[in-house]
């Protein structure tokens, strides 16, 4: 029953696994890119299949409905233009004040829309893949957001796709700030394995005055996330290690369980 051939094949499999695990990071990334490209035709098919119902719905939409939508969009466009004029004036004033006080100038971030094409099949990571790659100018550690708030950071980049480590993944730690009188600061780490909407805000000062509903934003420390991106709200807080520091649970603004489109911030 236990023939030599069995052990040879098992040995070959173990050898392949050990070789793959001992490859340097750059070689692993290239290999992942090569193997990942096998899935590209399936991604294309899935994308086309998802687009088809939307295209069909668009083609049968009545003219009256389309005119109504155009009218609404025109009105919204006018509002946004007036807001833009105000914002330009505020930005100009900001630059003047910064020059007056000799403060460093802030460069506005550019946004690029990306579609979420895939989720991590393993339950012990919280990552997604988006349809922007190095050919679109993507690189590691770019912040990713939605209209609601922070989503995560780009953790690895291939030619056509990028992996985003979501807030709550062990590989995405965020320096955060609570919007209260003391401006308490802490670090966002992974929450529970099941609930994607809750994460832990840890290493807060023992004297932190936290109340449920207080907003949490990025602090700007660490060099990855710019300051002021909304993250979520405080749910509750508890003292850790006999009052050495405080931990709080934060409910995220962005719904990480049903991400479809995200914005990538380019400096």
């Amino acid at each position, binding site marked *: 029953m236990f023939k030599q051939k069995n052990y040879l094949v098992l040995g070959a499999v173990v050898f392949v696994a050990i070789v793959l695990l001992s490859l340097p990071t750059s070689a692993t990334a290239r290999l992942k890119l090569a193997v990942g490209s096998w899935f590209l035709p399936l991604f294309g098919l899935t994308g086309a299949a998802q687009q088809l119902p939307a295209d069909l719905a668009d083609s049968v939409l009545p003219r009256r409905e389309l005119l109504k939508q155009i009218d609404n969009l025109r009105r919204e466009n006018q509002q946004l233009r007036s807001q833009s004029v105000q914002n330009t004036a505020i930005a100009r004033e900001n630059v003047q004040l910064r020059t007056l006080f000799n403060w460093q100038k802030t460069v506005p971030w550019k946004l690029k829309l990306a579609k979420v094409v895939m*989720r991590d099949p393993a339950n*012990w990571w919280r990552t997604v*893949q988006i349809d922007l790659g190095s050919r679109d100018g993507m690189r590691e550690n770019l912040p990713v957001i939605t209209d609601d708030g922070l989503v995560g950071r780009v953790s690895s980049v291939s030619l056509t796709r990028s992996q985003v480590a979501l807030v709550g993944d062990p590989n995405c730690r965020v320096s955060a700030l609570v919007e209260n009188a003391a401006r308490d600061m802490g670090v966002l780490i992974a929450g529970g394995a099941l609930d994607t909407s809750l994460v832990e805000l840890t290493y807060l000062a023992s004297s932190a005055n936290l109340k449920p509903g207080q907003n949490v934003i990025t602090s700007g420390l660490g060099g990855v996330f710019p300051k002021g991106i909304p993250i979520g709200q405080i749910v509750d807080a508890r003292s850790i290690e006999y009052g050495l520091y405080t931990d709080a649970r934060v409910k995220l603004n962005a719904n990480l369980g049903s991400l479809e489109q995200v914005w990538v911030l380019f400096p």
Partner: protein
Amino acid sequence: MNIFQTILILVAAFLAVFGEATLAAPRQWLGAQVDLLPALMVFAALNAGLPTIALLAVFGGLWFDTLSANPLGISILPLAIIGWPIYLRRDLILRDLPFAQFVLGAIASAAAPALTLLLLLSGGQYLLLGWGTLWQWLVMTAIGAVATPFIFKLMDTCNRALGYQPRVEPGFRLDREIQRSRKKL
């Protein structure tokens, strides 16, 4: 066993990994993503040869790790460790019984994530673990167990519909035909 069955198993593994990465429904409804590779490995170990088991372990693991944040190659060993003992003892297993397939599917689906986690933790990885992981493990085990008999049925149907069956030699041989005749005494 023929080459078509090996190709069929590998295509099924490829599609299973792609499905796991794109379908969000199990995660939204059950809180865990299911993994069908262990169930496929049970099928391969009971019905295919050693090269097929090795190919499924290597390519299945490689595809899974490519679409995941796992280190490349970490899922190969657990799949191989599941496939080998089943292959070695397959003559003693009632492989056509759905209950046997269910039990083997449950054991394989429970062992694969546990072994992968063990390897990842041994490698010093910091993972998303907690009490919820236990629920995810139970869901993976249950769905894997239920899916295994269906995978057997599906693969058998595909194999019968698309593959060729090896020619079976009939027992009848001309040179062994008994000539009967009335002999005159």
